[in-house]
């Protein structure tokens, strides 16, 4: 009887949102399972998990930045630049070992992220202005670099083309592809970083109130700078995954990706005004949006032209029901805690309560 309430009592407030998102995701999958023939299959899992991977990796980086009350709109361009440069590199040097290619991808991403970080943290330019600027500038660099050449799949080494096809783990019908596994590792790794490293805790403090964080002697500038470097690094990794998955890289590669990444973060419950959110939330946000998209394009009842209208509505409903659910759970949790004051205190909880 009291099993679930007791379980809930142990749950911390930031986890409530994740549970809410998970419930919505389950409801959605259940709904589409009744609508689409063969939806509940390993194939659907493979499709969605591989397609979510690129967005999820970039969304983890975005979450770090958003936690500090900043934003990184340049991720789409970083992904494009990295995919293109690494693609060119591999086209010209097919013998290059994989780890070098990945290191280059991450290195370029980190460098571009560092430029953002310098401008925002040390140049004190608002992040939205700075990264709107670099969004354009990085894309220009890409167009100039490319000289209208396209990276084509056939010029890429075989090992790279094998990456998106590689299955790491097969449980029955469900394949866990390498790309999805990488994304999950990144999410878990950074979730742990947020929770257990002082750096992670500081990000919450900075985002909740940059002024008091600074007064309290936190290295605000350095931490924000590092957040941007990490965001760039992860965008670099996402760029490498993008190259492996899509093979054909033109100057438009990754364009508009920033919107998907920001959408995943926002739907995932990361407060755009900083201070609250989690990597798992961002992953769930990305998964939710992608599941919606992938399911809608497979839902025969819905015409090509109706899909976006429904997608907009469903995102709205998901966010709304998540908020309502969160409210309920939070109330319940508060009451439960009042009833049993012996429950572990949560002094270290993130401040800030906004949606």
């Amino acid at each position, binding site marked *: 009887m009291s099993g679930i309430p007791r379980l809930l009592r142990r749950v911390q407030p930031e986890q409530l949102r994740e549970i809410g998102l998970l419930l919505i995701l389950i409801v959605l999958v259940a709904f589409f399972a009744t609508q689409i023939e063969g939806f509940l299959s390993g194939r659907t899992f493979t499709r969605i998990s591989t397609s979510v991977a690129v967005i999820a990796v970039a969304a983890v980086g975005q979450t770090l930045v958003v936690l500090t009350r900043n934003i990184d709109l340049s991720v789409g361009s970083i992904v494009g630049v990295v995919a293109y440069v690494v693609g060119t590199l591999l086209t010209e040097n097919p013998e290059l070992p994989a780890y070098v290619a990945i290191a280059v991808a991450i290195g370029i991403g980190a460098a571009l992220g560092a430029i953002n970080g310098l401008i925002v943290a040390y140049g004190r330019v*608002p992040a939205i202005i700075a990264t*709107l600027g670099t969004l354009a500038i990085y894309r220009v660099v890409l167009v100039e670099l490319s000289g209208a050449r396209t990276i084509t799949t056939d010029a890429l080494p075989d090992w790279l083309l094998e990456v998106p096809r590689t299955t790491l783990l097969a449980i029955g019908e469900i394949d866990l592809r390498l790309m999805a596994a990488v994304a999950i590792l990144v999410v878990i790794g950074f979730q742990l970083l947020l929770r257990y490293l002082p750096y992670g805790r500081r990000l919450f403090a900075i985002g909740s*109130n940059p*002024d008091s964080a600074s007064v309290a002697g936190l290295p605000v500038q350095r931490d924000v700078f590092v957040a941007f470097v990490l965001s760039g690094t992860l965008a670099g990794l996402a760029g490498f995954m993008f190259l492996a998955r899509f093979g054909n890289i033109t100057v438009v590669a990754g364009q508009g990706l920033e919107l998907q990444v920001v959408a995943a973060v926002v739907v995932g419950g990361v*407060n755009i005004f900083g201070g609250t959110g989690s990597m798992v939330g961002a992953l769930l946000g990305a998964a939710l949006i992608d599941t919606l998209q992938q399911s809608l394009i497979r839902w025969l009842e819905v015409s090509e032209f109706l899909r976006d209208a429904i997608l*907009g509505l469903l995102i709205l409903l998901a*966010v709304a029901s998540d908020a309502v659910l969160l409210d309920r759970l939070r109330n319940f949790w508060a009451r439960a805690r009042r009833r049993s004051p012996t429950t572990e205190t949560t002094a270290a909880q993130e401040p800030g309560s*906004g949606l």
Partner: protein
Amino acid sequence: MASEPAAPVASRDRGAAMGLLARLRSWEGLLLGLLVLIVLWNATSVSGYLDPRNQINLLTLSQEKIIVVLAMAFVIIGGEIDLSVASVMALAAVLIASLYEGGTPMELAVLIALGAGLLAGLNNAFWVAVVGLPSLAVTLAGLIGYRGLARLFIEDRSIGGFPGWFTAITRDAVLGPLSLSLLLFLVLLVVAAVLLHLTGFGRTVYVVGNSRDVARFSGVRVTRLKAALFVMSGFIAALGGVLIASRLGAVRGSTAEGFELDIITIVLFGGVSIFGGRGTMIGVILSIFVILNLRNGLALANLTGNTQLGVIGLLLILSVLVPNLIATARGRLERRAGDRGAGTGQGPDPRRADSISGTASG
């Protein structure tokens, strides 16, 4: 890091005129200087720039965007954001076209389209102001959803052949070289400036944008104000949709795609803080003219799309970065000179994201 320039904050509470003067010395002053530089540069080294036809083209090409910029300034100063404007523009334009094609008189079609804009705004307002969801999420859904709705009406078609009076709104000069739509823009520009700086409504927008909680405690009806902002934004966006249908003379599902980013860029460049509560209409207006003139000059000099964007991006960054660096350098010098005053020497830029204390979330 905690320093905060006193002038703009205080000015909001005092007379608006004083505030404007104070602001002119800071961000607006910089924009004005930039505008003068760009115009001089264009006039002396870009052939065709001074051509009266070009001056009109420069405005006409962006008229829908800059009208929506005026409304977006209110929304962002009010501490929210509306990403759905471009999709509402498309929805309005598509409604006009498909209603007209279906036999509805054009006048009525225009009214229905404007009404649809109001409804879209109301819908955004409901979820943001009443339910309390973050506007970024709500209007992101709107961005996808309203365009989806537009697609539903027009599918893969392109509808044109509008009556002459309708296309004349944006094409025929009625006063000097100005078309009706440009006159409308100029009127709205004055209205927006007056509304923001000289009325109680405008003051309330700042108060709410600064802190929702403070606003509520001081008796401001926050919900109603936020709702008003979104309804206004929706309506003006629909108006923009009417104008783009008129200017282009044909409507497709992709009409106005991506405009939201341009619109928001212009507002932010005008000195409006993305976190709300800061910025002036003068700054926004200057920003409009800076960006339009810059783009026009670059275009006439055959700097193509990508380079244009890059230059504008670089300008965006440098225009904030350079004053900040100068201020930092000056601050260091002053400190070295022994002036260990109140610590106001750092960062004159009022728009620093991290300098806003007490911004209420969402």
